């Protein structure tokens, strides 16, 4: 790549969390281990730790999402940060102000961290490249590219139940082509050494050359589910019917829906996962979503701890780098102003 990865600062530590591609197993494991530390927070009377006290986190959601936004809000509050919800959907950018101008205005509010969700792939990269130094960017989902916190909470859930990734067969079903969750899950699974990742769906929903990401493509769900340890469903958006990608949700369920009969083809202790919100009777049968193999609600709970981990790690790295450079200035190692 000719452009440097904007996720890392000059000290080589993670300062933005944008894309699981480009992060090695050590960083991913650090995030999972840190999240373990936060997972017990509900056991306390005061469900907070003081790490981000005095910091302001702003949710910049250019696409609607109550679920992800609330999860980030809760994570920020549990870290004792102040949270600002900026409604970008009806704001000035929809009136034609450029993304960059909007960013400058928000920087002037002196927030420490932005959680960004945007409809364009590459939006988080763009913002991270142009944001003022010492502001952290967390990607809450950019177009079809990446949803890294969802990827991490999926890994956390799998690790909690299954432990070692190197022995697992993970199957991802549905609209991989348009799914940032799928891309993030695939990147994380490959990095963590997953034995086999399978993607399955109609060809209209499988992106070109997806094998280059390290996955095996199946067109038959029954074949794909054999010996599966983890099954991940993906949301099928109604738009797909309008753009002639899938004829109907009924046909989708008949060919690629996770019914109880199909679930039985996988290993008996296989996990059933879904990033939500689920379309019951389309991607997954209601009984399967509610069944004993389903960990869908756990994913939501773990999402808080994982987001707390990501936010504290990048914030800590930025603060440390800032402290170090101020230290260097104090000791005349660098000239102030350079």
């Amino acid at each position, binding site marked *: 790549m000719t452009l440097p990865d904007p996720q890392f600062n000059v000290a080589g530590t993670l300062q933005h969390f944008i894309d699981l591609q480009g992060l090695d197993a050590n960083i991913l494991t650090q995030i999972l281990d840190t999240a373990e530390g936060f997972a017990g927070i509900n056991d306390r009377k005061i469900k907070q730790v003081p790490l981000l006290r005095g910091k302001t986190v702003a949710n910049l959601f250019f696409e609607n999402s109550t679920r992800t936004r609330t999860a980030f809000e809760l994570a920020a509050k549990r870290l004792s940060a102040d949270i600002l919800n900026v409604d970008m959907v009806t704001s000035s950018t929809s009136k034609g102000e450029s993304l960059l101008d909007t960013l400058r205005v928000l920087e002037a509010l002196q927030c420490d961290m932005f959680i960004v969700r945007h409809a364009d792939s590459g939006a988080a990269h763009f913002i991270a490249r142009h944001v003022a130094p010492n502001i952290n960017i967390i990607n809450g989902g950019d177009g079809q590219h990446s949803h890294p916190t969802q990827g991490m909470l999926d890994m956390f859930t799998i690790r909690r139940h299954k432990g070692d990734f190197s022995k697992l067969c993970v199957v991802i079903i549905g609209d991989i082509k348009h799914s940032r969750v799928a891309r993030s899950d695939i990147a994380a699974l490959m990095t963590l050494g997953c034995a086999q990742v399978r993607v399955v769906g109609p060809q209209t929903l499988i992106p070109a050359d997806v094998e280059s*990401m390290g996955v095996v493509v199946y067109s038959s769900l029954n074949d794909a589910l054999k010996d599966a340890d983890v099954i991940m469903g993906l949301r099928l958006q109604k738009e797909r019917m309008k753009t002639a990608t899938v004829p109907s949700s009924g046909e989708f369920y008949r060919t690629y829906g996770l019914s109880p009969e199909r679930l039985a083809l996988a290993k008996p202790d296989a996990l059933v996962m879904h990033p939500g919100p689920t379309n019951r009777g389309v991607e997954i049968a209601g009984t399967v979503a509610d069944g004993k193999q389903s960990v869908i609600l756990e994913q939501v709970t773990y999402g808080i701890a994982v987001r707390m981990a990501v936010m504290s790690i990048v914030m800590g790295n930025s603060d440390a780098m800032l402290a170090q450079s101020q230290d260097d200035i104090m000791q005349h190692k660098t000239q102030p102003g350079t």
Partner: protein
Amino acid sequence: MSEQILPPGTRPIYRITGGTLPGASNPTDIKVCNDTIIDIGTFSESTDDGQDIVDIDASGCMVFPGLVDLYSRCREPGLTRKGTIASESLAALGAGFTHVLCSPDTLPAVDSVATVELILHRSKQVHAGANIIPMAALTVGLRGEQLSELATLQAAGCPVASQADQAIDSTTVLYSAMEYASSFNMPLLMNARDAQLGIEGCAHTGAIATKLGLPTIPVAAETVALARLIELCRETGCRLHISRISSARAVEHISDAKQEGLPISCDVGIHHLFYIDELLAGYDASFHSAVPFRGREDRQALRHGLKSGVIDAICSDHSPHDIDASLAPFPETEPGLSAYDWFVPLLLQVPEVTGLNLEQVIGKLHDAPLAILGRDSSVSFDKGCPANFFLLNVDAPFAKTRQGIVSVGNNNPLAIHDATSLGLSPLKGELRAVFHEGRLTSYMG
């Protein structure tokens, strides 16, 4: 050699000494008066005593005929924050182009005589710039519905008609347009793209776009449209030039069509001989191009096609942009590379990636475009011929500072990246001077 006494008020005689002409093994001197070459050979200085002489040292330089650009954008009228006829014609001349065909997608489109005359007039006003020649918009407003007044526009000065980067949806309209244009022997210069398939895309369909989650432009978007154009060409007999092809499959289609003897030619944008989709990694907007950079095999086929002659010509595909055009997430950036300020060093690397020699490459930028436009392409450096040529030092290192950028557009990968990081050889090449209609533009010191 006859002596000429010049009447007062005329331009001086230029004596260009020590340059290497095409096909020559020894340096040759050229003498230019007004817009004509008045002598060729080896001169001694004494023979011109008493006359107003300007000596141009061309030692170490190759001498090439002024290049002809089959696709460029000057942005004027209507998009002048991205470029003007003045700025872009100057930039073109600095890249060795003396004649530039400008895309009709200005605002308004070039579908009226008034716009044609504005462009021609502005171009004439620029003393040291390339000649800007407008293409006619094939349909009114490029909307693909109603034919433009092609005969009138041709008479006003448009040698070809084009749809720029807009596809025509209706095959009926396209058929009719091709029939109509052929009545006036007006060639069509068409980019092959489907009206719907890939219209939302911004990158080649492949592993990179999959990883980046970008909407894509499949090869089929080009080849299906190309097949349609070829079939209609066969039936209507319209002279067809396919502008800026991008895929291996397109090269095959055109090769087959040519073997049949159909009146088809094609060109490739210079950047497509070098850049591929892998360079989009990290959402590098400098590689966002309306004709996408495709995969390695496609690039290889384009290079072979140029060598084998299936691809007749090279164009610049010059697309200058203002700075805001690239300050957005990748899918929202405006596509296009500003070509002229970095054209010469790329031109000089075409031989090493295609196996053609430099003279043959120059042919793809001079002889072939002229032939496609139905003009006489024979180059002569003889007494009495027009003085349209440039001096190129092919070994001088190439250095483009910010201040040295002539075009309004800085949007070129080489403005921000090192050549070797893009898979290129170190950049060389320096234009020393251009003679255009006898006027000298010097870039020395």
